[in-house]
């Protein structure tokens, strides 16, 4: 959920938007924000499934250290979504286990 009117930071008015594709769903994301923020804004919190136990994982540290939030982005697995910024037309997939490399990049 986006915070539209913050008591200290004020209203977010001058944002530009890009379109991203998340598991086949088209979402609007704020230009310059990390993928993880765009997903949280859309209420998506399950980013991947672990390889061994098949358990869900989401964002934990938010600063690129823990690698819990990795997803497959534009066909490349294991992308840290908390520090990777959204781009127009980006294709983001919930990652199953270690993920698979796709031919197209």
């Amino acid at each position, binding site marked *: 959920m986006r915070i539209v009117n913050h008591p200290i930071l004020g209203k977010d008015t001058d944002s530009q938007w890009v379109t991203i594709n998340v598991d086949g769903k088209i979402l609007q994301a704020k230009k310059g924000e990390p993928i993880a923020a765009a997903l949280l804004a859309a209420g998506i919190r399950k980013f991947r499934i672990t390889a061994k136990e098949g358990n869900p994982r989401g964002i*934990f*540290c938010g600063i690129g250290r823990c690698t819990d939030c990795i997803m497959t982005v534009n066909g490349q697995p294991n992308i840290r979504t908390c520090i990777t*910024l959204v781009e127009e037309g980006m294709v983001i997939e919930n990652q199953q286990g270690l993920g698979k490399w796709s031919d197209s990049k």
Partner: protein
Amino acid sequence: MKHRDAVIIGAGPAGLAAAVEIAKAGGQVTLLDENNKPGGQLFKQIHKFFGSSEHLAGTRGYNIGLQLLENTKALGVEVILDAPVHGIYHDRVVSFSHKGKEQSIDAQKIILATGASENTLAFPGSTLPGVMGAGAAQTMINVHQVLPGKKILMVGSGNVGLIVTYQLLQAGANVLALIEAAPQIGGYGVHAAKIRRAGVPILISHTIKEVWGNDEVEGALVTQIDKNWQPVPHTEKSFDIDTICIAVGLSPLTELAWLAGCRFTYIPRLGGHIPIHNSDMETTVPGIYVAGDITGVEEASSAMEEGRLAGIACAQALGLYDAKRALILKDQVWDRLNALRTGPFGEGRRQAKEELLNVL
């Protein structure tokens, strides 16, 4: 290869402050950071800082960050972002990757200002989406203006737990409770009072027993613990929540100091293994300095002062200041640092820091 008087790794409060000091003295500085923006964790600090006017008390953290960035720019500090450092060699060559290329800088002096990362806590359900670091939640609400959840349980009553609870309320979330395993609140009373006035109960001597949910956090069971940290029977409370924020301390990010061959000591009060350094912030490897949370977890104000100290010491070692001038400047910083390390919370840190300095 590029040659620089100093390379600073980490463009947070400590690194920025250090860069300003060396550049002010006339040194050529390159500041490297793995992130795509400088400022470290300063830009999520939307609260006003404490201390005296010398410590910029009353100024919000992000404005302090903006001020530091302006200073580095005005002084011609080179800032390279998206530049994770992966090598520090014996001849003080720093290697990093940037824009898909390996690059190296030959540095006369190196300052490690890599900061710290949040600790985690293990309990059944602790890996479910919705369990996150309090700092991560703070980044989401204050930098990206996105709420990580609506109904939140905060774990840990240090200043991070207290401040982030208040900021979650400001962002429009509902914080159902803050729990603390110790029998007393860890952070400043003024922060605790603020969230209590806002109606958030603080439960001391309480810990998480388990968290449940189908793919995401849906609830948590909390229990009281006795003075031996054992659960007290029949004290369990369940919370209908979707998010748990973990604020149980931080650990210094010391990998590069290990890599460089710095000698370490172990001081739990400062967050664990800390590179040994002298009062100039120089480690056991000549020419490699440390500043900020890597030398023990404190807060941004002391990180900036340590950065200044390391910067002045580097400038002196580079011959940019004579001993007399450097001593005056360093004494000024030490006065401000000691002022920050007073009172019921600062005193323990001051003692731990003294212990660290006495290792050498």
